């Protein structure tokens, strides 16, 4: 596979999760919500899990945290361009067929597997 530095690897992993992508979409549409606002938008997930997602996004520098009195607010950045490129890479990577799909598409190899299994 392709070599990439540690930081872009963090970005890539952070984005490889539908909830974290939804959190980013929320931050793109709302102005600096608090951790409580974000948790409220994902009632099925639970506050602790949302905090864990936010930490992963923060480590990848996809979101930053701002202290506002006793609240913590979140906004996108500073790594927005990296995030967009990581999304693109993920999309193109997943567009290639996998070895398993290819094997399943070959009737004769499917038979061989059935026999050996």
């Amino acid at each position: 596979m392709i070599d990439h530095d540690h930081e872009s690897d963090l970005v890539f992993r952070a984005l490889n999760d539908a909830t974290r992508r939804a959190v980013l979409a929320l931050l793109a549409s709302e102005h600096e919500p608090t951790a409580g606002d974000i948790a409220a938008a994902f009632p099925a997930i639970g506050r602790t899990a949302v905090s864990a997602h936010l930490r992963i996004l923060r480590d990848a520098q996809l979101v930053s945290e701002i202290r506002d009195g006793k609240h913590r607010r979140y906004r996108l950045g500073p790594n927005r361009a990296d995030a967009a490129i990581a999304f693109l890479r993920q999309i193109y990577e997943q567009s290639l067929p996998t070895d398993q799909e290819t094997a399943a598409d070959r009737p004769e190899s499917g038979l061989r597997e059935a026999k050996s299994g």
Partner: protein
Amino acid sequence: MHEIVLVNETHLGVPPHEAFDMFGRSGGPGWLFSARFEHAEPGAAADIDIPLPFAGPGGETTVRGTARIVEMRPYRRIVLRHETPWTGRITITFAREPGGTRVRTVTELDQEALGWMTGGPGPAVPDGEGPADATCVALLTSLSGSAGLFGRAAANCAALAAEEINAEGGIGGRPVRIEVIDDRTHAATGLARLRELDRRRGLGAVVGVHSSATFDTVSSYARASGLLYLYTAANEGSRVQDGTLFRLGESVADQLAQAVPALMRESGGRSWYLIGNDYSWPRAVSTQGRRIAEHHGGQVVGERLVRLGESSFDDVLEDIEASGADLVLSSLVGWSSIDFERRFHAAGLRRRLRTLAPLLEESTREHLGAAGSGVWSCLPYFSALDTTENADFLRRYRAAFGPWAPSPSALTESAYEGLRLFARAARKAGSPRGDEVSRALHGLTLAGPRGRVSVGADGRLRQRMYLAEATATGFAIRGQLPSGTA
């Protein structure tokens, strides 16, 4: 040009020729966004479904785009050009290695792709000022969504017009600059982006090649702000000019008045089934199609309107068969039209039923290949027109955009005519003001790719209409008729 390069590799446990043959085959493993095409050869149009990280304006999680095969070396290498929703180039190589094949893709993309990765539609063009000395004109079109397959050719035609206008010295000594807006086949997105661009750039005019749903939403903004708006796509034709708004495109009556009786004569059939998408233009086609068919002794035996973007037609095909129709009038648009005609062809219905699809043009037909063969259309331009003006136009178009660029069509070439007419009117008016350019449009004539066109005193475009039949590789012109005969 392409600023982002992505490299992906995978190992497949099959020899290179098998891996290669899987590409583009329906029913096989998903290869490059389930790319589908009729024949794996240079020039073949492919449709692709790209997954999105964020849901689109209609809640969709994938975006349907178009690509084109530009190079094919069997078992070694395939090169695809992305056309929509963003542009780029994908090179796929196949190399034998122990236990199978190493498949490597090198994807080169421009910045447009990034806009899709950040959620929300965002602005149509990057931040910053345009060149201060240029007249900015927006091309409002669709590069994604169900009408997205028209946008690339429309953008090419607009760019060619701008190049020619600027080679003649621009307008009043200022060059014209085209800004392309993708409405994503979504009226509110079109309006938001147009408004935002007008605020930042101060638009001289808008040329529109998009659905009438977008027109209905955007027209109130143009009317209120006095922006010159040339809607050049086929339209209902209900009201031609309204202040600085012009519906220059062919009307439903222009398209159907002669084509409906011609198809009845040609086939001997009289029973029509009407199928279309559920918005203003297809509804007008159904209403007027019924009136014209009945006037000529025909009858309507079934009618169905499906949502814009509908891709499943099994029950419609059953309904058509049960209706006893021998003729079909289809006002399906874009991808809906392609999905319908593919299924219609696969079901073997083409042998018994003749279809008139007034919006089947080159962008749509190129995805159908043999599946579209035998469908009739009626439009003011086909790239097959055998005239000196059209041959010159196509030569310039191919020189600028390459041999495999999407062929211009009545819909997409109308952007060229719209811009040439705007430039001529703005020069005549000697002013960039929308109301003054509007007045100057009346009585203008232009000898262009589709022949001689003129803007009447009522703001309506006078032009010739052509009746054509799709073949597996293009259109065969079957007849010509003057417009405004209905």
